[in-house]
């Protein structure tokens, strides 16, 4: 019953969504060079499945690599901001300003600095776009730690590192995972931005671009669905990690 509920309900929602999509296209009588319908997608996947596998893999690994960088850098930055008021006051406006810049404007900048290094540029963009939520939430999590939590260990002469390891870090984990869920989708946007905008790109973004160039609408929509699938995959990977490392924060539901 529980398993049926957990898998059946989302599956039904997806099927209803696809049916509505198909219905709208059919109702309006749109040809597939105007708007593809779900029934156009299987032929597109069948025709290009090898491209989807190689391009999908490229998009996936570069996104995960960028996300990994974002986790490391974001956590470190968050620690600095969480422990030092001066760092917090100094870095916040800079960070907010940087986050406000549309990342598309950075693509030509990166392309010029690291010319020809497509993989590196893509990973860098995925990282740049996704570290902000992690840094902010870790910073807030650490700076709002109630002083009593620190005092129970400090009064025993524990070092700052011990306090961080035993209390501050685990206590911040729920916030960290909340931010990571946001960052996962952001990282995908970063990867695809570079893949679509930069010439002779690779990955699903480039496949999308080639579909656009050739007026192959079913291919373009097939790429979008593939991207959504990868996004869901990574998101649930984060949820699984959260269950393992911060499952204690889940309240039993009555």
């Amino acid at each position, binding site marked *: 019953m529980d398993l049926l509920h957990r898998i059946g309900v989302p599956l039904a929602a997806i099927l209803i969504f696809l049916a509505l999509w198909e219905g709208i296209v059919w109702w309006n009588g749109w040809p597939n060079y105007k708007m593809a319908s779900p029934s156009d997608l299987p032929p597109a996947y069948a025709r290009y499945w090898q491209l989807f596998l190689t391009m999908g893999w490229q998009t996936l690994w570069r996104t995960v690599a960028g996300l990994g960088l974002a986790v490391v850098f974001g956590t470190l930055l968050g620690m600095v901001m969480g422990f030092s008021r001066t760092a917090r006051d100094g870095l916040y406006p800079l960070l907010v300003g940087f986050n406000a810049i549309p990342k598309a404007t950075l693509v030509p900048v990166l392309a010029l600095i690291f010319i020809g290094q497509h993989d590196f540029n893509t990973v860098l963009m995925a990282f740049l776009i996704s570290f902000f939520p992690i840094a902010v939430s870790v910073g807030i999590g650490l700076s709002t730690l*109630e002083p009593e939590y620190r*005092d129970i260990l*400090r*009064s*025993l*002469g524990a070092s700052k590192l011990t306090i961080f390891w035993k209390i501050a870090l685990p206590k911040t984990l729920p916030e960290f995972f909340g931010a990571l869920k946001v960052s996962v989708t952001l990282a995908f946007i970063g990867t695809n931005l570079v893949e679509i905008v930069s010439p002779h790109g690779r990955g699903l973004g480039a496949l999308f671009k080639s579909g656009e160039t050739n007026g192959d609408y079913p291919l373009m929509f097939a790429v979008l669905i593939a991207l959504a699938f990868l996004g869901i995959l990574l998101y649930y990977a984060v949820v699984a990690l959260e269950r393992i490392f*911060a499952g*204690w*924060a889940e309240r039993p539901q009555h």
Partner: protein
Amino acid sequence: MPDLIDIRGVSHAYRTPAGPLPVLEDLNISVPEATFCAVVGPSGCGKSTLTRLVAGLMKPDRGEVWLHGERVTSPRRTVGMAFQNPVLLEWRTILENVILPLEIVAPRMPRKDRVERAMALLEMVGLRGFEAKRPSQLSGGMRQRASLCRAIVHRPDVLIMDEPFGALDNFTREDLWQTMRDLRAAEPFTCVLITHDLRESVFLGDQVIVLSGRPASTQFILNVGLPADRRIDVLYTPEATDMLHLLRDQIRIAQGREETVAGGAAPRDGQAAPARDRTSPALSPRDGGAR
């Protein structure tokens, strides 16, 4: 023998944007070994600052804090702390929470011994069978019991408590007073309890110290003089009632509402006045100059 805790002429002020805010002014407190010192005083008079000073978490501007004949300048492992908020770690079970101080103080202690020690304490406070639960699965009173176990698991010389029972309902609170009494009977430690509850201070304390309003200094010391194995009934004896009256009057003075009492403007205040004048061998006057 020197007193275990000796606070000598301590003054402290916090720096605020509006200038220094003095919270303690020439405070003197001595607590003999294995006795229980309850500290009461008006709200915001610097009682919590006192706990942080004794724990070595901060240094006073002036004056000295001595523990066991040694001057306190930094945190010491021989101190245990409990707060109004039980501050249990949500990601640990109750047992692992109680063990936490041992991980810091006795990193080489075998796991088996740690568990044994923690379980013995949990048994004593009536939490046997709950050791595998998470803090969120326990009631407020049970969480506070676990917090007490954690505070003394490493056998500290001194237990410092900052209103540990303040957020509990009356019945739970009285239960915990008795738990506290039993814990002290089982393993003697010196206790400093900050509280707002006068009944609590008389039931648990060997001496009750009344702090004056901010900046706080020692205004009055009451030697309770009741046997260690008290029962809750003791609070309903005339002796305890007199002490409660006296403490209450002292709190009024500390709050700066002395005039209304002394002036006798209201008849109800007049009734309370005689208790203040009574001299009993159990009561000692303020010993501000004692060194």
